[in-house]
């Protein structure tokens, strides 16, 4: 039963449809009726609903923008309670919009006391069919498996039969559509498989088996509007119920192909075909070429067809290009075209006739062999501009046209002409044991260099060479500063210790060792160490001051000594 009616063309393509959430129920159940109206906002006349009481009514709208066109859909949802038992009817509902009337289709609902026994099968079911159960040998038929589900399912897995008496080719994609059946909306997933019978006789296609998990809501049905939200599996209030569904077996009677009544050899094509032919040029000169194109178009095993026999008159030479196939697998099976391009090269002048080309195929609609015939083609060949008969070595490119600037020669894509595996490897190293690196060996080899480096470091530390020159210099600076800070240190030793502390710290920044530095060297080292200019100036001033006191021999009072000590400490801290 069709649950909706599309109203014939109006300017705004208004459409109205009605659907229900179930078609069988008990008197206590609530039925949800949804009326959807596209591109019109009109009131629905529900006065005709006599078998149900309308409990509630809500509306909604949505807006879509598809391929540059906008559309509005308005929905009216009604909660209906049955007033009696039996086959109740929701009659055709009427809408008036801008002077036009639109109607939905009536929907029948079965109301009975006992719960519906085959509820599962109505919620989810499978079907299988073929588009022709009386095919001929070699005729392609399409096996369609359909899964209908009106509830939430998960983990579907399909096992199709073996199709042992057929050549099998699955279509690339499953289709997914929505269908209204008995007023109820189902998601329908379809898988199409093209089958070509290999021998005649009666065969039975075994059932396809679908396994899936049905999502079952836990607990009692609540009519709380939040129920649909909190009752979902996300909040763990659902469980999965394993379902195994089988289609019915399909008997098929495969007819043998009748005897070929014609003189023309049967091409092996089974289906529905057309043949067309065209010639590029009808007037050429000796040495030039023209392309004859033959196109077989239709439904069937087009890809298997060989090039039709062509009788080329003397005076012409024929060169074949690789046939071009444009065959796709669709709802009806293999369909498309195969194009044969032939380069005809004139080697003599004169008028030549290419006789009609014939293809004998078996037409599955008519159930008989059919002969396809092209017209005859006339070709006028004028003498060449060059004197004498030219040695023709034609070159035809992939498109079958002639390249004028080069000598003519055919180029073809190299393809396998036979299939087999490559031979044995006979060298004796095939018996050598090459187990590859084990995990233990890999870990060992990973660790070894690290252990070596660690051991070397330990040795260097033990021998005292492990410390870097920079750290040695820092230690020396600290030691000298400590020595200078001791009370009672003689003046010359105090100055010498300050100098050593300062120089050592500067050298540590340069990663060097040494005893003395000039002011220029200090500047150079500290500049490379990216010290601030003011700090470098202070360091230079301090060095000049220490050297000046050291070498001038001036006396140091306690205040100057303390001030010099603090200054040195401060500068060393900045340098560090």
């Amino acid at each position, binding site marked *: 039963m069709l649950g909706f009616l599309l109203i014939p063309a109006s300017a705004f393509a208004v459409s109205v449809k009605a659907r229900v959430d179930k078609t069988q129920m008990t008197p206590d159940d609530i039925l949800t009726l949804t009326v959807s109206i596209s591109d019109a906002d009109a009131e629905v006349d529900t006065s005709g609903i006599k078998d149900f009481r309308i409990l509630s009514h809500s509306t909604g709208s949505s807006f879509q923008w598809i391929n540059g066109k906008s559309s509005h859909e308005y929905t009216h949802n009604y909660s209906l309670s049955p007033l009696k038992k039996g086959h109740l009817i929701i009659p055709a509902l009427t809408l008036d919009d801008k002077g036009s009337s639109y109607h939905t289709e009536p929907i029948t609902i079965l109301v009975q006391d006992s719960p519906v026994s085959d509820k599962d099968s109505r919620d989810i079911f499978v079907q299988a069919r073929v588009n022709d159960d009386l095919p001929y040998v070699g005729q392609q038929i399409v096996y369609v498996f359909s899964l209908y589900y009106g509830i939430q399912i998960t983990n579907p*897995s399909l*096992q199709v039969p*073996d199709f042992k008496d057929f050549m099998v080719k699955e279509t690339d994609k499953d289709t997914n559509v929505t269908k209204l059946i008995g007023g109820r909306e189902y998601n329908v997933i379809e898988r199409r498989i093209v089958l070509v019978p290999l021998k005649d006789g009666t065969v039975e296609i075994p059932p396809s*088996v679908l*396994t899936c998990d049905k999502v079952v809501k836990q607990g009692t049905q609540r009519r709380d509007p939040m129920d649909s939200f909190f009752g979902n599996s996300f909040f763990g209030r659902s469980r999965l119920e394993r379902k*195994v569904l089988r289609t019915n077996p399909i008997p098929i009677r495969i007819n043998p192909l009748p005897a070929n009544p014609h003189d023309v050899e049967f091409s092996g094509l089974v289906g529905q075909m057309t043949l067309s032919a065209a010639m590029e040029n009808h007037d050429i000169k000796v040495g030039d070429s023209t392309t004859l194109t033959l196109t077989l178009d239709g439904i069937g095993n087009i890809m298997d067809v060989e090039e039709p026999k062509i009788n080329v008159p003397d005076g012409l030479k024929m060169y074949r290009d690789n046939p071009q196939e444009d065959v796709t697998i669709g709802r009806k099976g293999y369909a498309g075209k195969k194009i044969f391009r032939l380069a005809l090269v004139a080697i003599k002048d004169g008028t030549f006739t290419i006789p009609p080309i014939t293809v004998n195929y078996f037409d599955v609609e008519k159930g008989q062999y059919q002969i396809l015939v092209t017209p005859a083609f006339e070709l006028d060949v004028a003498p060449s501009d060059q004197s004498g008969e030219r040695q023709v070595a034609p070159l035809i490119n992939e498109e079958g046209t002639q390249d004028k600037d080069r000598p003519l020669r055919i180029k073809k894509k190299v393809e396998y002409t036979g*299939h*087999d*595996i*490559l*031979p*044995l*490897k*006979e*060298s*004796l*190293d*095939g*018996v*050598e*044991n*090459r*187990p*590859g*690196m084990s*995990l233990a060996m*890999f870990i060992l*080899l*990973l660790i070894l*260099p*690290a252990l*070596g*480096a660690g051991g*070397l*470091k330990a040795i*260097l530390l033990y021998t005292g060479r*492990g*410390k*870097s*020159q*920079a*750290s040695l210099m820092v230690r020396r600076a600290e030691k000298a500063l400590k020595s200078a800070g001791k009370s009672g240190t003689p003046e010359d030793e105090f100055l010498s210790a300050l100098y050593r502390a300062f120089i050592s710290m500067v050298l540590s920044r340069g*990663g060097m060792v040494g005893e003395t530095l000039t002011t220029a060297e200090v500047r150079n080292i500290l500049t490379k160490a990216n010290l601030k200019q003011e700090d470098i100036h202070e360091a230079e001033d301090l060095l000049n001051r220490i050297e000046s006191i050291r070498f001038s021999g001036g006396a140091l009072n306690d205040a100057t000594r303390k001030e010099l000590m603090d200054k040195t400490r401060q500068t060393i801290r900045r340098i560090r």
Partner: protein
Amino acid sequence: MMIGMRRLTVLGMMSLMIFVHAGAQASEAAREYLEGIQLYNQGHYEKAATLFETVAEKGVINGKLYYNAGNAWFKEGNIGRAMLWYERALNIMPHDPDLRYNHDYVTGLLKDKSEDKTSPVFKVLFFWKEMLNKNIIRWLALGFFLIFWVRVVIGMLNSGRSMKLIDWLFLSLALVFTFTSFNDFYNARFNEHAIVLVESVSVRSGLTEESTELFVLHSGTRVGVDDELRGYVKIRFSDDKIGWIKREDIEII
């Protein structure tokens, strides 16, 4: 002194016997291998395949040997065992052109279409896994680590200089290849695969012959192995199909 001399003589003789035994085993394997090649060339494919398998059972791990076993089983018409040995050979020499050709050819003859679920993004991000074989990746990891540690040692000897950008680069490369290698070791140990050996086998929902048949697999199909229980193996096919199959109907790669 005399006792010491005697001990040395006994030890020497034992070593010689072990050496001679190992040599005899090696020459026996070589003889069987050559005989297998000869039988193959004479068209006795089953005998050749059995001999190649005998050599492999003696512990010889060699991609060429496995390749030859695959060839012999294929010529014998046993696609299941051919795929088993080709897969084993691919683990050792995945880039051998002859092997890849033969493997692809036999794969084209299989009845079950397997879907490669490896994400293309993964293939791009971890391109070296596709380009290099496992042993090369391991040696690269070791090589980069060696270079890194040599540079560290040079740094230690050279006044403790700090690590430079090039050192970090070597360390990064070493870590990448090391992680890849560990991933390979993990997959080899815990992600087992097997080949269906029988012509056609029902994969069932449980561990009995009465369990529901979920789907059917055919000879030569590669499956993942998840579990083994009471003579049945839980297998995985194309990521989304799982079921139980008899242990004797498959062989681990």
